[in-house]
Each structure stands twice: as structure tokens, then as C-alpha cells.
């Protein structure tokens, strides 16, 4: 059953990456990449159970944070064109 769940998560990842490649706007691409990142967390968790090594969950925990910080960083870069600029400087 872990293999079936993994297959569904993989198909979802491919669909999300397809939206990231096709996406008409930049924000569609960010949304697709963000969703693929969330699915990576699920994939790592299920893979740990499939191979009988649930220690992989620590990696999944790190991927949640990486995905969140990465999405916000890309959004800030697109909005301000500079990661080091604060919101006050933009005004």
C-alpha cells in the first residue's frame, strides 16, 4: 500500500511540475514548485516506511522548512528584485 501511495504522490508531483513548466504567469510556476515541494515531504515520509527506515522523517521535517523559506525568498525576489531590501526601502 505504501507503493500505491507513493505512485499517487509521484503522479501529483509530475502534475505540479507540469504546471510549473507550463504556467502562464510567474505565480503559477511558484505555486507548482511549492506544491511539488510539499509532495516531496510526503514522498520522503512514505519512502521511509516503504524501505522500513522511518529515520527518513528527519529529512522530511527539514524539507518542510526549506520549501517554506524557498517559496518566500523567491516571492520576495520577484516582488522587490532584491533579497536584501526591506519593505520600508520599497516605499
Amino acid at each position, binding site marked *: *500500500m*505504501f507503493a*500505491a*501511495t507513493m*505512485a*499517487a*504522490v509521484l*503522479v*501529483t*508531483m*509530475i*502534475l*505540479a511540475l*507540469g*504546471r510549473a513548466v507550463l504556467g*502562464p*504567469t510567474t*505565480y*503559477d510556476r*511558484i*505555486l*507548482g514548485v*511549492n*506544491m511539488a515541494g*510539499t*509532495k516531496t*515531504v*510526503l514522498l520522503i*515520509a*512514505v519512502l521511509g*516506511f516503504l524501505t522500513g527506515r*522511518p529515520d527518513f*522523517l*528527519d529529512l*522530511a*521535517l527539514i524539507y*518542510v*522548512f526549506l*520549501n*517554506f523559506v524557498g*517559496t*518566500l525568498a523567491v*516571492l520576495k525576489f*520577484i*516582488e522587490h528584485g532584491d533579497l536584501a531590501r526591506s519593505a520600508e526601502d520599497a516605499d
Partner: protein
Amino acid sequence: MDSMTPIDIASWAVLMLGAFFCLIGGIGLHRLPDFFSRLHGAGITDTLGAGLVLFGLMLQAGWTLITVKLLFILAILWLTSPTSTHAIAKAARMAGLEPMLDKSDESQETSA
């Protein structure tokens, strides 16, 4: 598969349900017409899909440290994914992306 305990059956059902919601969200991400409605597709996979898959894994793990780790992943995922979805939606709105609204009233006005 004849040695399945009730916990295994419950875990199987919850995992399959979670995988089903993941697929629904993935298909929605492709089929929905504009960016703001596609956010709904991503939201389904982040809340119901991830929640049910991780809950099914929790049933498999039992009362161990693994369940605690899965609970942490679930809690952090449920905090961060609405935040990032909100940030994407707000950034798109600030950039001037208009949501696709119902055109039925407008078409009635033009036809009248």
C-alpha cells in the same frame, strides 16, 4: 495479505484516501481556469492530502517517536503551507493579476 489487522485496514483506507485527494489537487492544478482558482487545487493537497497520508503513516507507526515526528511534520506543514499560499496570492494580487470572475452578468448586459 491475509494477516491484515484492523489497524492495517484502517491505515490502508486512510492512505488511499490521502493519495486520492493528492491526485484531485494535482488534476485541479491543471484543469482549473485561472491562477486564483488553482490555489484551491494546491490547498486540497496541502491540507487533506498531506494530512490523511501522514495520519495513515501514524496508524502504521503506533505510539512511538515516529508518530511524534509525523505529528511535528503535520503541524509545521499546516502552519507553513497556508502562509506561503497566502503570500503567493497576495503577491499575485499586488502585481496586478485579476481574478477571473463570473462573466454571466456582463454578458447579459452586453446582449441586452
